[in-house]
Each structure stands twice: as structure tokens, then as C-alpha cells.
């Protein structure tokens, strides 16, 4: 009975995480072999109406207030654009000149450089869409909470689920193998040798680099 439950966890947990494991496998290989063709992206620039007359200015504000107002300005731009990206660093977003608020947003798969022309009520947006390879790489362990997108935030839950499922699948896989008499000896040799080599390699790298 216990064996059947464990087997079901192993099978259905694995099937539930099927796509995540494939993406993780591809991205792991890509991290190890970062070929040039996997880094390209496509960049497009356009200008669109964007009315944001009430963006705050730094005059007369102390550093702390200005930091808060800068965040608010960025949020207004993000709301107006309908994007769930976020500023790359806390320092992103500043007045380029008296009329132009410049900011930079990123998220998995996309990057934005934005000039908001307040007087004209327009924004010039340069968007870079990452390549499929980069997107897969960025999804590797992605664990961000996107306040503007509930759907995108659920990827963090899937990441947690898959981490737990894989650890459970590894343990349950070993447990299930121990119940197969015919393959016990060869399996034990493989497991012992591989464990010794893996742990030794990790230890040597950690202790002596």
C-alpha cells in the first residue's frame, strides 16, 4: 500500500512538473554553454499618447522624499502603460530635462526604456523582447512577486512545487528501486560510486576551489 502511494507520488508529481523540468534542463545546459545565438533579442521603438501631467519633481525635496516620489512616478508610468515590469534598480527614473521623465523597467522576457514627454502627453518606448532561450533562462528559478500581475506571480508557486516534487521524486525513486531485487546490486554500485564522486567533487570545490 505504502509502495503504491509512493509510486503514485513519483509518477503524478513528475507529470505535474513535466514542463518545468524540461525548461530547467534546457536552461541548465544553456547556463553551462552560453552560445552567442542564445542571447539575441528584438528591439522596437514607438511613440504613443501617454498623459501623466502630475509626475513629481525633485525641487525642494529631501533625498528620502524624492526616493519615494520617484517610485510613485515610476508606478504611474507602469499603470499608464499597463505593464507588470518594475524598475531595474532603486535609482531608475529621473528627469532628463524639464519635460522628459526617463525610466527603465525590466521583467522576465522584456526590458523597457521609456521617455515620458509630459508637455506633449506622449511617451517614447524602446522595448526589447528577449529571445526564447533567454526567456527560458530567466524563467529558471524565477521567484518574483509581480504586484501588477497575479498570473505571472504564480510561477513562483510552481517553482516551489517543482522543487519539492523533484526532491520527493529523488527520494521516492531510490525507495522504489530498493524494492526491485534483481537490480539491487548494480544499482547499489552505481548509487555508491556516483554519490561518493558527487560529494567528493562538491567538497573539494568548496574546500580548495
Amino acid at each position, binding site marked *: 500500500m505504502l509502495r503504491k502511494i509512493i509510486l503514485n507520488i513519483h509518477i503524478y508529481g513528475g*507529470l505535474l512538473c513535466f*514542463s518545468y*523540468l*524540461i525548461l530547467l534542463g534546457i536552461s*541548465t545546459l544553456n547556463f553551462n554553454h*552560453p552560445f552567442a545565438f542564445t542571447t539575441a533579442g528584438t528591439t522596437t521603438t514607438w511613440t504613443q499618447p501617454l498623459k501623466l501631467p502630475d509626475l513629481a519633481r525633485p525641487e525642494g525635496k529631501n533625498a528620502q522624499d524624492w526616493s519615494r516620489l520617484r517610485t510613485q512616478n515610476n508606478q504611474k508610468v507602469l499603470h499608464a502603460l499597463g505593464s507588470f515590469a518594475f524598475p531595474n534598480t532603486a535609482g531608475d527614473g529621473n528627469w532628463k530635462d524639464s519635460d522628459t521623465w526617463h525610466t527603465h523597467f525590466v521583467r522576465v522576457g522584456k526590458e523597457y526604456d521609456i521617455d515620458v514627454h509630459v508637455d506633449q502627453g506622449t511617451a517614447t518606448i524602446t522595448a526589447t523582447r528577449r529571445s526564447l532561450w533567454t526567456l527560458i533562462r530567466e524563467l529558471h528559478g524565477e521567484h518574483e512577486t509581480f504586484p501588477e500581475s497575479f498570473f*505571472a506571480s504564480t510561477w513562483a508557486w510552481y517553482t516551489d512545487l517543482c522543487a519539492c516534487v523533484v526532491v520527493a521524486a529523488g527520494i521516492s525513486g531510490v525507495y522504489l528501486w530498493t524494492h526491485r531485487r534483481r537490480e539491487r546490486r548494480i544499482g547499489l554500485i552505481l548509487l555508491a560510486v556516483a*554519490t561518493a564522486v*558527487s560529494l567528493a567533487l*562538491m567538497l573539494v570545490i568548496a574546500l580548495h576551489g
Partner: protein
Amino acid sequence: MYNLIRKIHLYSGLIIVIFLMMYFVSGFMMVHRPWFVAAPPAPTTQTATLQSTGAQTNEQLAAAVQKQLGLPGRIQFPQKQPDNLLRFWVNHPGAMTRVDVSTRENRIDLSTQRVGLVGTLIMLHKVAGYDSQPLFDAYAFFCDLAGTSMILFPISGMYLWWKTARNRLWGILCLFASCTYAGEMMLYFAYAR
């Protein structure tokens, strides 16, 4: 065919299980860093005299300094260099050493930060790519094995399930949910604002 795939699934699993466990446990720690990582100890500092002289590129000088000091690990340069200094990091799982080299004063300043067990695991997770260091290359080979197995396991596992399941409904539902969700997520990240 079934037996062959079952054996591949089983034996490759037994070979790579420790590495996979390490990757997923350390990955979980990485994304929930505040739960696991305590405040790091204060870095230790050290000063040495630069022995390497003559015109060299930053990479050559960094390699010479690493050799002079016997620092284990891989060299990493920051995106921006400070004025009048060559700065680089020599990192290996377990410790990160910041090296500031002043060729004008023939002086090397070292600041070593130990990272503890969790930090070591996280750094082990991040080791990737081949270079001329055999130890790291061997590790990168295991990383390749782990990456390949992450593709191999779900595919071979799906085949084994398909061949043995009496009732395939729940499996199909799990598989459909997984593929639809990941596919939609990729499209969303690629095309949404």
C-alpha cells in the same frame, strides 16, 4: 524498448540523484534566501605586495595575482572598475575574495567573505561553464549531466507511465495542466506588456 527506457530512467537517476538533490535544495534556499541565510560574518582583510610587474592586460594581471597569492576559485571582474585600481573577485563555493590591486603602489588588498553552509550550497548551484581549471570542468560536466537528466527523466518517465498505466486520465490531466500552464506563461512573458 520498455525495459531499455526503464533501465535508462533508473540507472541515470541513481547516478545523478545527489547532484539533482543539491540543485533543487540549494535552488529552494536561493529563492527563499531570508529563510535560510543568516547575517554573514565580518570579512577578513589582508594586504600583500604586488610581485608581478610590466605591462599586462587586466586578465593577465588578475591571473598573476591569483597565482601569487594562491587563491582558489574563478576570477570575476565587476562591470565598472574603480579609479586607479584593478578590482576583481576570486570566488569559489565557500568564500568570495575581493582583490584590489594598485599597480602604482605595488599593493594588493584582499577582503575575504566566508559564506557558511547555505551560502556554499548556493554558490555550488551557480557554478557553470567550462574553463581551464580541471576541477571546475569536472563539476561543469556533472552540471551537463544534471541538465540532460532533467530533460530525460520527464520524457522517459512519461513513456513508462503511458505503457503501464491502466487508467491514464489523471496522468493526462497532470501532463496537460503542466504543459498548458508553462506554455501560457511563456507566451505571457513574451507578449504581454
